[in-house]
């Protein structure tokens, strides 16, 4: 029998990989379980935004948590680059385009509410002329944008790869094609995670970061996250000469020139399919913002599933009946990766939730609708 790891992380997506990287980097013996390509893989269908504007407008703890994540992203990008040689491509200066004066007024209200809640972020409202200085070639309907330096973008795929590569460089062990199905606990061996073939891994502590697979696993340690899928579709063009040097909420251009348009919010069960209506809607939004994109070629579209809690907020919790057993889930695995990696992973390896807000435990009112 192998000796238990300090920490077993179930889920090799952006959340699990960030937590495992942070734990291994802090010196813990950490084992990361990845289900393999039968998993829903939200991390690989992601748009790649580090997005703060408007997040948690009704839940200040979540707002401050997200802003703190945005502040620490450049540091995470730098460390990952130094450790692995992989440039995850962090770039700030996020824009939210407004296509009418009414939309601009809504942004103004959002900025005021953020300020009133003490959000440590500066969001400017640009009029059309100021925006054109920054981003030439916007369409005639674009009335302006809100801009913040902390909102950013990264390549989600390079981020995932860098976290997993760094994790292994810190001595972490990655076990792929392991579908955790049963979780048990005994005082002598600690947490015992089994797959359907009854293969076992052992850990003194355990984190469930299994995306939509977390419901069945969390229940076994007494937690009920009630997670649901929400589909987002994304459209991808061929490579276009760089024209957009800012991330934006509906459009971003990668360093290589590809333009991504997205994304939708749909209830489609567990389907990751695409449909022509959604694709054409995304293309219309893109060509309204930048009419020259009418010439671009649509080369791909895909659907991916967000992991949504009933109130849309992340969940950070510890099982009261199984101390040392944790659940971490959110739909912003990119945005929050910096805090998961730099703060939460090391804390979990020590057996606590560190700075994760108390109000994001799973016993909150929003997760238990009457």
């Amino acid at each position, binding site marked *: 029998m192998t000796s238990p790891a300090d920490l077993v992380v179930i889920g090799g997506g952006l959340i699990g990989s960030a937590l495992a990287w942070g734990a291994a980097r802090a010196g813990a013996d950490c084992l990361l379980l990845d289900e393999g390509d039968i998993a829903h893989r939200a991390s690989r269908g992601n748009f790649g935004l580090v997005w703060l504007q408007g997040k948690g407008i009704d839940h200040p703890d979540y707002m401050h948590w997200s802003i703190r994540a945005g502040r620490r992203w450049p540091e995470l990008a730098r460390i990952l680059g130094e450790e692995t040689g992989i440039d995850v491509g962090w770039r700030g200066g996020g824009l939210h385009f407004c296509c009418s004066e009414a939309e601009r007024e809504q942004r103004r209200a959002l900025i005021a509410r953020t300020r009133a809640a003490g959000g440590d972020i500066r969001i400017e409202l640009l009029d059309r002329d100021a925006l054109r200085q920054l*981003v*030439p*070639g*916007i369409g005639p309907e674009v009335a302006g944008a809100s801009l913040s330096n902390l909102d950013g973008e990264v390549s989600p795929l390079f981020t995932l790869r860098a976290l997993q590569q760094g994790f292994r460089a810190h001595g972490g062990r990655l076990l792929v094609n392991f579908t955790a199905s049963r979780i048990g606990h005994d005082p002598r061996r600690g947490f015992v995670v089994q797959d359907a073939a009854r293969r076992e891994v052992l850990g003194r502590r355990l984190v469930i970061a299994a995306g939509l697979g977390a419901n069945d696993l969390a229940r076994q340690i007494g937690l009920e996250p009630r997670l649901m899928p929400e589909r987002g579709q994304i459209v991808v*063009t*061929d*490579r*276009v*000469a*760089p*024209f*957009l040097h800012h991330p934006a909420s509906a459009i971003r251009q990668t360093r*290589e*020139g590809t333009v991504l348009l997205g994304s939708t919010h749909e209830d489609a069960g567990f389907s990751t399919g695409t449909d022509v209506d959604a694709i054409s809607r995304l293309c219309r939004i893109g060509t309204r913002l*930048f*009419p*020259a*994109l*009418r*010439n*671009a*070629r649509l*080369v791909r579209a895909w659907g991916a599933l967000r992991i949504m809690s009933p109130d849309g907020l992340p969940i950070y919790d510890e099982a009261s009946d199984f101390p040392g057993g944790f659940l971490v889930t959110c739909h912003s695995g990119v945005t929050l990766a910096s805090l998961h990696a730099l703060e939460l992973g090391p804390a979990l390896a020590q057996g606590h939730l560190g700075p994760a807000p108390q109000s994001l435990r799973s016993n909150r009112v929003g997760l238990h609708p009457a």
Partner: protein
Amino acid sequence: MAFIRLDPLPCESSAELFFEDRPMRFAQGDTVAGALLAAGIDTFRQTPVTGAERGPWCLMGVCFECLVSIDGVENQRACMTPARPGMQVRRQTGSRHDAAAAGGDA
């Protein structure tokens, strides 16, 4: 690599397209890629990221290596485009500018 037509260009064929302003004869039914390869041209484009020279690879529309500019429209797959008389074909150098707002960066 040299490509040689199995069936030589018929003498009566006078259809021409223009590649980088040079007239080039082709046979009816040729794709742009076929016509250029038969004329001894194997560099169709330079990549946006490193500037490396590229030419047709799959010849069936999936690899996007044979991109050229045709009549001013960039990033066209030469292998999927039938040759037509008078076409103006140019190498695609770097990424396309015709779909970039304000022309994009140089």
